[in-house]
């Protein structure tokens, strides 16, 4: 830490927030200095992004005050925060795909000359901002829809800079970036701090936190744990404060009597324009975990198996018989199920009732069995402990966890033989997570084959009987159950992992295994 005391650019004291009677944040103090990278870390649900939303003016705090550059401010609309110089880059970009980079950057405050938009100034200003960041390969007149995820993120950052922001907060910036793109982000953050801009960096990836941040604030369960200089913290200590409770036993053990039987689904040399050379065998009663970094093609793998974006080469065998799943319909008929990564976009019809959603697959594929299925739905819903006012309540009013349970019920009704999970526990409460794990165990016990794509290494390791790791669209490695997280990471990043990087994971009962890296709750691989 350099000894130069920098003046505080942003201070928040006693921030509290609650939704419908449940306190989400209480007593949060935060102080961000000029030119500093301030890390904000915390477990899933610790309240990180709520705090960011309060600072960004999306929500108003129930308690506490915020000072920006010395004076007290209350932001009731994101734009007020931006104009003041506090800009947030959200995980889902606020961009218009059909418009050009320059038009997006200056949306809402187009520079004008004599009443008309000064296009030349807009384009040159954008180009200026881009070159300031050393980015020359993005054309200000390019359509944002045609840019890669990383390039779109840069546009968001440029948009922040165009407000000559003094504080830029980034929510999970590297969630969907590949290596060299992360590399550039580092460089950009450094240029920003070099120019005195403070950066609030929200991330799960401790490596990045320690690479970039000067100081780190830790949140746990909506409360402020501590704010320390990065040097004064070791990763292990950070994780201990972050988690505070061993989660190892979080994952239910295999139910007795679960035996790994014959192969249910065999893929030989399968591939399409996204994945290639897939040799995978899913056996009855076995839970196969699929690890890998963002963009390594895990979602494309399950969508390939399920036929939504089917394989164009290789052979597929289901219970010994050759099968070709050209569409989701043929896969469902074959007894497959896919719990998709994005509940809202691909899993649920939000304005319909719980019952209608639960019967959606049966009605779409096995119309004849609707009556029988309808009888089983209440039983399935209660076994998953879906808490809803009634089966006719609109799914839209349910919590994330309950919505995911409805999606599970939707597939259980068809009693699938091979169940594919894609990030099944992202963004749901602990109770729901445990219900998902419980279900996987029960499926395994019933002799079904389970494939689970997950970005949370503890979950991947805790639940899988066998782990396959994907890298750049190919199955890079296969690891036995209970292998350490760093082994998974090594396979995922394709590097030989050096010994000294090992950091004890306080949460794991056995001594000295794996560094704690609850790898980022990233968006799906697909940009």
């Amino acid at each position: 830490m350099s000894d130069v005391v920098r003046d505080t650019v942003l201070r928040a004291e006693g921030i509290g927030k609650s939704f419908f009677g449940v306190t989400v944040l209480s007593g949060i103090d935060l102080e961000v200095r000029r030119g500093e990278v301030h890390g904000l870390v915390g477990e899933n649900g610790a309240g990180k992004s709520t705090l960011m939303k309060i600072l960004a003016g999306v929500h108003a705090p129930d308690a506490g005050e915020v000072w920006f550059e010395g004076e007290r401010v209350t932001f009731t609309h994101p734009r007020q925060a931006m104009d003041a110089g506090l800009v947030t880059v959200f995980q889902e970009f606020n961009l218009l795909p059909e418009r050009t980079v320059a038009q997006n950057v200056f949306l809402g405050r187009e520079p004008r000359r004599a009443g008309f938009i000064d296009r030349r100034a807009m384009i040159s200003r954008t180009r200026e901002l881009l070159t300031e960041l050393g980015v020359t390969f993005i054309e200000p007149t390019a359509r944002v829809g045609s840019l890669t995820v990383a390039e779109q993120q840069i546009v968001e950052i440029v948009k922040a800079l165009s407000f000559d922001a003094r504080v830029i907060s980034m929510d999970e910036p590297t969630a969907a970036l590949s290596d060299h793109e992360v590399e550039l982000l580092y460089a950009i953050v450094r240029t920003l701090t070099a120019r005195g801009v403070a950066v609030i960096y929200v991330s799960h990836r401790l490596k990045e936190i320690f690479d970039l941040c000067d100081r780190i604030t830790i949140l746990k369960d909506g409360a402020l744990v501590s704010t320390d200089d990065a040097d004064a913290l070791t990763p292990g200590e950070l994780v201990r404060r972050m988690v505070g409770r061993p989660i190892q036993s979080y994952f239910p053990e295999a139910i007795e009597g679960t035996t790994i039987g014959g192969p249910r689904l065999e893929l030989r040399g399968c591939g399409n324009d996204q994945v290639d050379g897939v040799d995978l065998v899913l056996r009855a009663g076995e839970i196969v975990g699929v690890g890998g970094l963002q963009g390594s093609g895990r979602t494309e793998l399950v969508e390939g198996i399920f036929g939504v974006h089917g394989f164009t080469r290789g052979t597929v065998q289901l219970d010994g018989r050759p099968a070709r799943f050209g569409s989701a319909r043929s896969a469902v008929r074959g007894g497959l199920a896919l719990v998709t990564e994005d509940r809202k976009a691909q899993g649920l019809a939000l304005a319909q009732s719980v019952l209608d959603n639960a019967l959606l697959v049966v009605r779409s594929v096995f119309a004849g069995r609707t009556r029988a299925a309808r009888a089983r739905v209440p039983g399935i819903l209660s076994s998953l402990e879906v808490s809803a006012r009634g089966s006719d309540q609109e799914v839209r009013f349910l919590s994330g966890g309950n919505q995911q349970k409805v999606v599970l019920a939707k597939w259980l009704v068809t009693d699938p033989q091979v169940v594919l999970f894609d990030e099944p526990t992202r963004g749901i409460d602990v109770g729901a997570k445990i219900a998902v794990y419980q279900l996987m165990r029960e499926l395994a016990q019933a002799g079904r084959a389970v494939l689970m794509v997950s970005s949370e290494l503890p979950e991947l390791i805790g639940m899988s009987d066998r782990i396959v790791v994907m890298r750049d669209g190919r199955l890079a490695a296969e690891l036995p159950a209970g292998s350490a997280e760093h082994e998974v990471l090594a396979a995922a990043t394709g590097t030989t992992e050096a010994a000294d990087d090992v950091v004890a994971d306080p949460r794991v009962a056995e001594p000295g295994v794996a560094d704690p890296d609850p790898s980022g709750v990233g968006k799906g691989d697909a940009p």
Partner: protein
Amino acid sequence: MKRLRIDSTVIVLAILVLVIAIGAILVATVGRSFFSPGNIRDILTGMSVLGLVAIGQTLVILGASLDLSVTYVMSLASLIAATTMNGNPANIPWAVTLTLLVCAGIGLANGLIVTVLKVNGFIATLGVGLILQGVLNTSFQGSAGSVPWAFQLIGATGIGPVPISTLIMIGLAVVVWWLLGRTRTGAHLFAVGGDPEVARLSGVRTKPPLIVAHVLCSVFAGLAGLLLASRLGVGSPTVGQQGGYALLSIAAVVLGGTLLLGGRGSIWGTIGGVAIFAVVDNVMSVMQVNPFLKDVVRGVVIVAAVAVYSRRAIVRRRARFGPGGTRTGGDAAAAAAAPDMVAAAVALEAGAKDTGANDTGATDAAATDAGGEVRS
């Protein structure tokens, strides 16, 4: 590396050229020349009225709304103009302003019903259309008023084969194209039509652009009504309904590549769509096609043309592997950008180090090992 982005405006103009080519051949078989002055004038005249209405409709559809009341606004405009002018050239300016003011008022009503009362554009303008029909039937028995000769000149004369009305329409198209590209309201209209949420979060007020779009749409329908009054020499309560301009203008706009869901489109695409209709109608008239068959051809042309480029609009993920499994280098665009990114990163690092602003500390270690260090 960036594939030449063929936007739909280019495709529409390509379809137009194709239709003209076919038209010219067909017309030749009947022994007439497609490019003779009289024929060109007939086509361009056919474009002026529909063009004006379609320009207004484009603005509304860009904002993800719709205006079905334009037919009645046109009839009302022609009547107000003709009755206010009453044959006396002196009151032309006042008549025109009054007409456009009334139309703007109707447009404002449409806009407010859609944005404030949150009634879908289809139903709101259908309702306002019915109200206008009631007004037309009660206050005007038949054609009324008379347009002085000076105003009729606009509808009748032209420069060579190009009628003045078409020049006015093209001119107004340029103005609207300029406003759309160069004013905040224009930019915000695209934003509100594309994704109201993103617009709201960027501080754009989502109501005004749509209201302005509805006002302008009705004003342009008024201009079309004025043009009709000038051509007819008199106001008529059924002139809008005769042409079925509401649905035809929506078809022309969609034919021009503007998305019915809003957010993307261009004035020139719409003008292209209007031209396609005009050419098709002209060719059929020259070949004395039975009027019932004309409708059949129009219906087919609308669906076929829109089908040509609507298939193209589906966004696909970028291919990572070639057909035989050969790697195409990962995400093509991202990979291509990789070297520039690394170069930019290194340059920035150097810059940052020179200024020495930020501390050495832990970050230094990370900066140097740009190689494949363990990175989560």
